[in-house]
């Protein structure tokens, strides 16, 4: 008998880890069956309840959208308006917890056991976490936000550089530009990534080190104990599926609208619902191919393609735009961000309600509602990293990239707005609000606009394919009770389902209402995340270092 497990197979011994002793066996509540020729391996209540309620919700939203829409919108306004202090304070806690993990000895714990080695190279890993985390948002908001915050939203009461008739007030310009960039970076920097890092770290820790299934409920084991395998856990997992599927479906709908707006702008392809349905079908079809190619052959490859195209577009804007100002601006904006991050994150004693409630609080709720999806995906690809390495890479590097991206796109756009009263960006952001065209407006004033706009559209679409694909993986894992090797038809089902829900909502209206609902799930998940912080510290403290 020769037990031959060399380094080419199992990635080195896992070393000591503090496995939680539970009687629960992964998959014990699963139903393994087949429908016709398709095998299924699904978690008993979670799969059925999520699937059926999503169908029911979609039908109800379509049937009663006139009455349901305002309810969801009111709920969102109430949450982001009345509980803004809660979202802001919680996000600050997440950042502090992450920073503390970097500097304390807890940071030396390794995900997957003391001697685990990373599953992915830095580039592949980083590409995946970035594409899942915010790729698409940077496309949509990279131009919109810096210009909007500079000119309209007046964060911390810094006055706008335009008077009521739209004329420039020169003495306001510098402060408004600096604040516009700082406020944008604030929304795309440490805070959102700290939210993702907390969820991802908690999931990775309780799965790879503690041996619990890779689902949201496992984070709650220290709190609920064995009860977490019962209805408490079912509800947590179902909520996570809801947030992920509705988040994805609504984004898919909005993404199709943005891509269509771009196609209209560049090629004059008319903006119509039929075209958008066609785009959703196309995106879903490509996502299906990617789903069938798996994690390494699909999502990872797509993420790397995304990164390469995004880097090209970024370099183009840097060189075609005001190069010197962008490079210098990176450091200036980093400084502005550092100076303003504390005042901007203050939950109390501020007068900028429009900015704080309409933007910051909404963003925090949005990032948090997306965190089960992004966090779970990041967790799955992060085995083998030490906690310190993980937090540095998930928190600091993406934040730095966001700063550079916003500086390049926002900085170029702001320059266009300030130097040219007729600029396209000014038309789409300040004079009339057409956010989906802001990026194309900025590109249209740089050379080779037709080429770069097409690249922009392609990038929007590929980012969506990546989201749809990784989202299907995540939902499938949750609804299979934490199994990552459930039969492939299940993933195909979820991927197709996302597309269908998006089409139904697009045709019947109600995308906005459901996005409001998805964001509303941010509130319960904020509580989840706060508990997760405690669970992380407790879990890490018992790990061998």
């Amino acid at each position, binding site marked *: 008998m020769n037990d031959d*497990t060399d380094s080419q197979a199992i990635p080195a011994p896992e070393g000591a880890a503090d496995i939680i002793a539970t009687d629960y066996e992964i998959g014990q509540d699963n139903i393994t069956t087949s429908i016709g020729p398709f095998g299924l391996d699904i978690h008993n209540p979670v799969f059925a309840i999520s699937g059926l309620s999503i169908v029911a919700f979609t039908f109800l939203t379509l049937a009663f959208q006139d009455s349901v829409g305002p309810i969801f919108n009111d709920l969102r306004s109430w949450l982001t308006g009345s509980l803004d202090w809660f979202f802001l304070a919680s996000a600050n806690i997440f950042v502090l917890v992450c920073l503390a993990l970097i500097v304390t000895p807890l940071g030396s714990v390794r995900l997957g056991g003391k001697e685990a080695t990373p599953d992915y190279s830095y580039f592949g890993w980083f590409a995946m976490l970035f594409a899942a985390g915010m790729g698409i948002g940077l496309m949509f908001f990279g131009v919109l936000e810096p210009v909007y915050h500079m000119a309209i939203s007046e964060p911390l009461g810094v006055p706008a550089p335009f008077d009521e008739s739209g004329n420039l007030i020169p003495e306001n310009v510098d402060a408004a530009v600096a604040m516009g960039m700082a406020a944008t970076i604030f929304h795309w920097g440490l805070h959102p990534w700290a939210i993702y890092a907390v969820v991802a770290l908690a999931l990775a820790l309780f799965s790879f080190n503690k041996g619990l299934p890779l689902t949201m409920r496992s984070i709650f084991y220290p709190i609920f104990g064995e009860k977490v395998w019962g209805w408490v856990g079912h509800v947590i997992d179902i909520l996570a599926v809801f947030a992920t599927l509705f988040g994805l479906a609504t984004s898919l709908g909005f993404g199709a609208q943005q891509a269509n707006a771009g196609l209209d702008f560049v090629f004059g392809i008319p903006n119509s619902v039929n075209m958008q349905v066609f785009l959703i079908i196309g995106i879903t079809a490509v996502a299906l191919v990617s789903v069938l190619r798996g*994690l390494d052959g699909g999502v990872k490859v797509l993420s790397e393609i995304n990164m390469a195209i995004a880097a090209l577009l970024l370099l183009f804007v840097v060189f075609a735009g005001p190069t010197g100002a962008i490079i210098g601006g990176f450091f200036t904006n980093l400084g502005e961000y550092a100076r303003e991050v504390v005042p901007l994150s203050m939950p109390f004693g501020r007068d900028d309600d429009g900015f704080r409630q309409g933007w910051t609080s909404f963003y925090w709720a949005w990032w948090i509602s997306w965190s089960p999806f992004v966090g779970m995906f990041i967790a799955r690809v992060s085995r083998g990293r030490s906690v310190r390495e993980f937090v540095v890479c998930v928190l600091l590097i993406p934040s730095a990239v966001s700063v550079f991206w916003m500086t390049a796109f926002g900085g170029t756009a702001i320059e266009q707005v300030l130097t040219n009263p007729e600029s396209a960006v000014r038309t789409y952001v300040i004079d009339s609000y057409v956010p989906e065209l802001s990026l194309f407006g900025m590109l249209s004033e740089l050379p080779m606009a037709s080429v770069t706009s097409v690249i922009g559209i392609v990038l929007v679409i590929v980012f969506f394919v990546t989201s749809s694909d990784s989202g299907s993986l995540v939902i499938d894992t949750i609804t299979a009770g934490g199994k990552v090797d459930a039969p492939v038809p299940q993933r195909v089902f979820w991927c197709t389902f996302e597309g269908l829900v998006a089409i139904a909502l697009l045709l019947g209206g109600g995308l906005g209402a459901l996005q409001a609902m998805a964001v509303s799930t941010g509130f319960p998940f904020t509580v989840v995340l706060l508990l997760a912080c405690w669970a992380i510290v407790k879990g890490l403290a018992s790990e061998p270092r």
Partner: protein
Amino acid sequence: MYNRIMVPVDLAHANRLEKALITAADLSKHYKIPVVYVGVTTATPSSLAHNPKEYAEKLAEFGRDQATRHGHQAETKAYTSHDPSIDLDDTLLKAVHETRSDLVVMASHIPNVTDWIWPSNGGTLATHSDASVLVVR
């Protein structure tokens, strides 16, 4: 005639493999060559093990059990896959190569319509490796 027999095993459904396991053990004794039992696991916890190391230990125990039961020479080798629902074929192909096996004995599933979309593992192995493949019904 052969150097080594590879038997892919799904430890979660080991009872379904009985016929293939006996066939492999008989062939092993006939040709006086070792059998290497190959298992594929995930980095995330599964119903079988909390981590890949624990899985490898269970697989080794399975190999020892087979050796005692059938009296042949048995080895084991565990592989981790990021996404075994998709990468199983590739991992098994790699295993054939790395274990230098030239005969694969594996249990088959009941053929169905989905084989048109997702080819059977045995079929893929036979197509893409140099080893002989015996699929046991």
